[in-house]
């Protein structure tokens, strides 16, 4: 089976009569994938021997949604059930039965009721072109409620332009985008009530202190509850008392994150949220994002770093020169990821050995050779075992190099 041919992943599976996209083992769904049954049930998550197993989400035709762990096809472990009427229960499950209710979550009032389907963010043939000819062209994708969607692309590929359209800062040239069914350009004010936004470029009102700025924004939102804000400040170890002008880049980024999260919105749009944060704070952010997702929030976050997206997101869209080249489950993206390793060998003849077994080699300098691996780890390790290795390092790569499949060789060599 040609792994690069996406169509070959789709199978009509006789025993369930549905449409499965993912890996098959012994003709049974295995690993990560999506299955749509003829009766309308849809499962999206991890599989074992043809049954939902591990984490995933089932959309039942009745309108119920279960999101959590499965064991041999049954609700199991920690999970959350949304009834068709909007009521939600968080609890522990065993063999499809609710054992203990941990929390009865509030249904998200009018904001959820107006919603027709489960698409929270909907982008339809969206086009926006700048005078220079750059822009975004004919974008189409949706982000479901309760999903973290990664928006991946190198600098200048159109991520921020898409976000400008979603925030209603610019009017789409063609097509449209909606958040919770509301048009982003015409209904910006209603959308903002339930939206948390983190701009990609950090620019505050410099002469204010952090606290004054947070007060201004919450007053403009008409919310006076400071408990969530204070806990966020504590989590990110932010000191908002100083003047913003004198804050470091990381401190400003934290202030931006607190501003986006403090009013507990239903949808988040975050433009490169971890830029400027140290690894420790990046972890704090990832944990917060995942917690919010588990509370049923929808997150769209842009990034130019796949590893970060992998840790946070359920699905990701890849954009290149203003056009969407793929929307995939992050786990299947992971398998098409192409990693580069720098291998230092004792003798140059070993390089020939690596080449002869069919490994893809990149730059060779002295005894160090760049080896590209995409899924074929066994082959790589077998080949290495027969050589004398002096050093092995992971090479840093651009997003284009990681996803050569989507970006094409000409984009990388340029």
């Amino acid at each position: 089976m040609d792994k690069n041919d996406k169509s070959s992943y789709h199978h009509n599976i006789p025993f369930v009569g549905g449409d499965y996209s993912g890996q098959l083992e012994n003709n049974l769904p295995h690993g990560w994938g999506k299955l749509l049954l003829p009766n309308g049930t849809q499962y999206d998550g991890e599989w074992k021997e043809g049954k939902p197993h591990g984490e995933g989400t089932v959309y039942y035709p009745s309108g119920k949604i279960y999101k959590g762990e499965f064991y041999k096809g049954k609700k199991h472990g920690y999970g959350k059930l949304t009834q068709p009427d909007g009521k939600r229960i968080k609890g522990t499950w065993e063999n499809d039965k609710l054992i203990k209710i941990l929390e009865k979550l509030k249904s998200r009032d009018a904001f959820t009721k107006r919603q027709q389907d489960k698409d929270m963010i909907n982008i339809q043939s969206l086009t926006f072109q700048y005078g220079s000819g750059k822009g975004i062209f004919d974008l189409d994708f949706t982000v479901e409620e309760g999903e973290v969607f990664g928006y991946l692309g190198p600098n200048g590929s159109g991520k921020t332009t898409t976000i400008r359209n979603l925030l209603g800062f610019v009017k789409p040239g063609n097509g449209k985008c909606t958040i919770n069914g509301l048009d982003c350009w015409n209904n910006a004010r209603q959308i903002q009530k339930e939206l948390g936004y983190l701009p990609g470029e950090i620019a505050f009102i410099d002469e204010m202190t952090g606290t004054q700025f947070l007060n201004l924004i919450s007053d403009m939102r008409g919310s006076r509850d400071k408990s969530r804000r204070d806990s966020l400040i504590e989590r990110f170890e932010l000191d908002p008392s100083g003047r913003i002008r004198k804050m470091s880049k990381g401190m400003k980024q934290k202030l931006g994150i607190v501003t986006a999260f403090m009013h507990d919105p239903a949808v988040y749009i975050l433009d490169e949220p971890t830029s400027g944060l140290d690894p420790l704070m990046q972890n704090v952010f990832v944990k917060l994002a995942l917690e919010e997702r588990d509370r049923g929030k929808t997150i769209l976050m842009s990034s130019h770093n796949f590893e970060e997206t992998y840790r946070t997101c359920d699905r990701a869209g890849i954009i290149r020169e203003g056009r969407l080249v793929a929307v995939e489950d992050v786990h299947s993206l992971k398998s098409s990821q192409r990693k580069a390793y720098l291998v230092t060998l004792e003798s140059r003849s070993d390089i020939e050995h690596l080449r002869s077994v069919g490994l893809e080699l990149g730059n060779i300098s002295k005894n160090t050779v760049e080896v590209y691996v995409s899924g074929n780890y066994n082959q790589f390790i077998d080949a290495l075992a027969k050589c004398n290795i002096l050093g092995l390092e992971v090479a840093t790569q651009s997003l284009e190099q990681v996803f050569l499949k989507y970006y094409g060789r000409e984009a990388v060599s340029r």
Partner: protein
Amino acid sequence: MIFPLFKSTAKSSWIIFVVFTAVLFMYMSIMVSMYDPENIDAMAQYLETLPQGMIDAFGYDTTATDLVSFMGLYFYGFIALLFPLIYCIILANRLVAVHVDRGSMAYLLATPNTRVKIITTQALFMVISVVMLLILNTAAGIVTSETMFPGKMDIPAFLNLNLATIMLTLAISSICFFFSCLFSETKNSLAFGAGVPILFFVINMLRNISDSYPWLEYLTIYSLYDPPQIVAGEQSVVLISLIFAGITLFLYGSGIIIFSRRNLYL
């Protein structure tokens, strides 16, 4: 109007306001103290030290005998126009264009308020602070003249003159604000928002120097405002106030509408 935004804007702009109020007060009191009802020649001697071209440019080419005409001639012809003009340029740029250029407008727009509401709040702040500046200036004029020369100031005529000045300055502020709403970069908003009113001001000065280009009158809104004529009651303050009010409403309104509909690259 969004009160929290108004409050925050006021907090970050009060220092500029205080500086301009103080400068105007200083000039006002110096000018009043230079008035000498017994010996108007002192002023004439002072004027002799200046080149003729400069005297014409400032509009100091006639002599005044009473205090209000004296102020109309020497203060309201130049200083009372120049400093409020600079104030309008600085403030208009800070209120809109700087937020857009720097990107902080993104945070304001990400709150559940319409663009019209946000920008109207900024416009209101502009109008209120310009009016406040000139009302304080008027009060300073009355207080200093009543202290130094009790009973010499024709207060109704002085109030008329100040009303015309306020309306003119509001029209100038609307030009600055309009261009601040129109452009995404401060360099453009300043080029036009400062350039256009300064050009009007300079044309007015050229017009005073020479009568050989009468058509210059039609190239500047300052020509609608003639302090000696207002003091003498020869120019209708109501009429010019209405014209300036029309310009003000039109340009603030257009600025707000354009801002609420245009693309913002934040």
